[in-house]
């Protein structure tokens, strides 16, 4: 008995001693991997450096503050040059890293989004189109893996037309007016037309469509047509600061008033305005994320991330610019979706799968209070997602360029008839489903 006790004691003692002698067990740090399909060179570099720069800055900021419930965020970057073929290549390259698959993909461009959109279902990856891309993806029953949060093009054109109506003194005063839709000659340029034509017909407005061949540095004949048409308003749907700035200089050359010219969100950045100089003054532009440095989160990133010398922008003065803030808005949604996914699936402190991330995305409820808490209250419009509603707020703000910066004009606005826009989306998505033999899912 004594022998047994002694033996047992010796074994316990030796086990404790062995345990003490061993190095401390290494607890693997949980990570969640994100793809950055950036476009830092080429004609859309101004957009890409700002937008993706902000995403990386925010991921860094989250990591500096302990990650998402302890899960550290990792990422890999791939250069697409805003080219659809290279976007597919980058998607393939970024899809997996260290055994972990991406849960979200963001192309920052309609051509790239269309190039990968049909892979999302099979790969179980969320395509987060932040204010761009395929509009009828707002119908989550047909497009379970695609979102166009922060508003889509049909809402945007509807808000533009609402703004025009307000300037004219009401919808009743729009009858007989003429609007030129000048757009880059691509699917992106024509994307808003179904909604625009429908609203115009209902209001008794004439729409004249004028296409500009890419890259859009030559627009003289188009603006001569504008001069002949004598429209009341021009909506400009350009891509790349070359086309966008040329639009304003040409408007100035024919004496078209800039306060009758409204730019799309992808022509609404400081980089689009600067090259046009005085010709840009007075131009209206749409925003789904307002510029500015006074938002607490923007200040915190500047202090913490850039203070530590880890900022992604080469030119720090671009913090708070339109594209940087837009990228920040997009990245905030990723992190919020991840947080939701962890909580919904009992995986707090653990990485999530694409399907779980999708659930987290659909559970996004960015109330004004939550946006304030995050530190971007007022920068983006409050919104809520659901299984059916993948389009977010559908709200936009109008800004006006004063020669130095954008000045906000009015509050966040939604289309005057959101039900009509939703009806268009549902019809378009149903048509797609029928053409592709898809059975729309049933939402709870």
């Amino acid at each position, binding site marked *: 008995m004594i022998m047994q006790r002694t033996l047992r004691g010796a074994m316990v003692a030796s086990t404790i001693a062995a345990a003490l002698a061993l190095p401390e067990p290494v607890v693997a740090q949980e990570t969640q991997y994100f793809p950055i399909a950036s476009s*830092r*060179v080429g004609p859309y*570099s101004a957009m890409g450096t700002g937008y993706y720069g902000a995403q990386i800055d925010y991921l860094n900021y989250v990591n500096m503050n302990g990650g998402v419930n302890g899960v550290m965020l990792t990422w890999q970057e791939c250069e697409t040059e805003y080219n659809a073929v290279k976007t597919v290549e980058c998607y393939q390259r970024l899809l997996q890293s260290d055994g972990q698959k991406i849960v979200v993909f963001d192309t920052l461009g309609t051509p790239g989004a269309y190039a990968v959109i049909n892979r999302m279902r099979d790969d179980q990856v969320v395509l987060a189109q932040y204010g761009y891309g395929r509009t009828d993806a707002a119908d989550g029953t047909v497009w379970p893996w695609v979102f166009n949060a922060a508003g889509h093009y049909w809402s945007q054109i509807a808000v533009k037309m609402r703004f025009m109506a307000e300037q004219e003194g009401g919808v009743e005063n729009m009858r007989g007016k003429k609007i030129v839709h000048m757009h880059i000659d691509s699917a992106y340029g024509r994307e808003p037309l179904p909604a625009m034509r429908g609203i115009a017909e209902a209001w008794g407005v004439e729409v004249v469509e004028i296409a500009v061949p890419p890259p859009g540095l030559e627009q*003289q004949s188009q603006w001569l047509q504008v001069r002949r048409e004598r429209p009341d308003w021009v909506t400009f749907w350009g891509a790349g600061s*070359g*086309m966008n700035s040329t639009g304003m200089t040409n408007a100035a050359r024919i004496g078209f008033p800039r306060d009758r010219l409204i730019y799309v969100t992808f022509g609404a950045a400081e*980089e689009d305005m600067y090259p*046009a100089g005085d010709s840009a003054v007075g131009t209206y532009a749409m925003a789904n994320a307002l510029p500015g440095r006074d938002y607490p989160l923007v200040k915190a990133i500047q202090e913490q991330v850039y203070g530590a010398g880890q900022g992604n922008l080469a030119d720090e003065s671009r913090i708070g610019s339109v594209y940087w803030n837009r990228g920040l808005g997009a990245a905030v949604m990723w992190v919020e979706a991840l947080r939701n996914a962890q909580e919904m699936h009992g995986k707090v402190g653990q990485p999530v799968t694409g399907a779980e991330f999708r659930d987290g995305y659909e559970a996004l409820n960015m109330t004004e209070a939550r946006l304030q808490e995050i530190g971007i209250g007022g920068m983006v419009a409050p919104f809520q997602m659901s299984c059916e509603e993948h389009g977010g707020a559908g709200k936009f703000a109008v800004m006006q360029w004063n020669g130095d910066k954008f000045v906000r004009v009015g509050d966040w606005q939604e289309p005057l008839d959101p039900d009509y826009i939703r009806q268009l989306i549902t019809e378009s998505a149903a048509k797609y489903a029928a053409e592709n033999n898809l059975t729309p899912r049933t939402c709870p």
Partner: protein
Amino acid sequence: MTEFLFFFEVVLAGMLAGTMYSLVALGFVLIYKASSTFNFAQGAMVFFAVLAFVGLMELGLPFGVAFVATALLMVAVGYCTERLVLEPLMNQSHDTMLMATIGLGFVLEGLAQAVWGVEVRRLDLGIGDFPIPWLVDNLGLFVSALDVTAGVVAAALIGTLALLFKYTKMGLGLRAVADDPGAAASIGIPLKNIMLAVWSAAGIVALVAGMLWGARAGVQFALVDLALKALPVLIIGGFSSIPGAIVGGLIIGVTEKTLEVYIGPYFGGGIEGWAPYVLAIFFLLYRPEGLFGEKIIRRV
């Protein structure tokens, strides 16, 4: 506005746009005259030159100093191209040279963005791009001072280069090199010096073209695509003709503007991107040497 006045304005806009295309086409012609090679890097040279010019101005250099410094930089680019690319590929096929210029274009694009960054810059030449009030008030024409300047600069450059190549020894040497580099070298024409001079001249032309385009559209990567605008100009004017560059530019400018305004709406608009190429194809079918190009007669 009467329809006739509008038509006149469309034609005028086409001519003004055409002179801008001519400036870009001129750089291609210079290289083609010397080496019978289509220099795919010309668009990148436009971008490289004007980005360097704006970058130097941002560093605090005055306008004139920045211009001279950039011109010297383009001479250096020409020198490096001659020494590192052309000389090792001398006597290779034209296809090889063509591929080399494509590669050179990518190098210049990347280098420019790596050195000066990718931000879009504004270039203020002090020349307004607003309608000249007198023309608006008296003739109802919306022509800007920048339009007029572009036309004058293009005409002056083309005139100077045409005279230079017709009446100087270097011009004569250039023509000899273009006809038969081997024979030209055997009679003592300094091939290397001529190539260097031509690439330097093409670089300086690229700088001027970039400055005028940059003043209108901002200094940015999209300027690289201007090469695509110059191609039909060259096919119509002739790849080796300096006057052909301006005539081809005017034809393309007027054709694309009139077609866009009067025919474009029936095709959904945006036809000026491809309409010049349709015209160019007709030229390739019926007059492949272009209006001013040399007719090549080969012995069978």
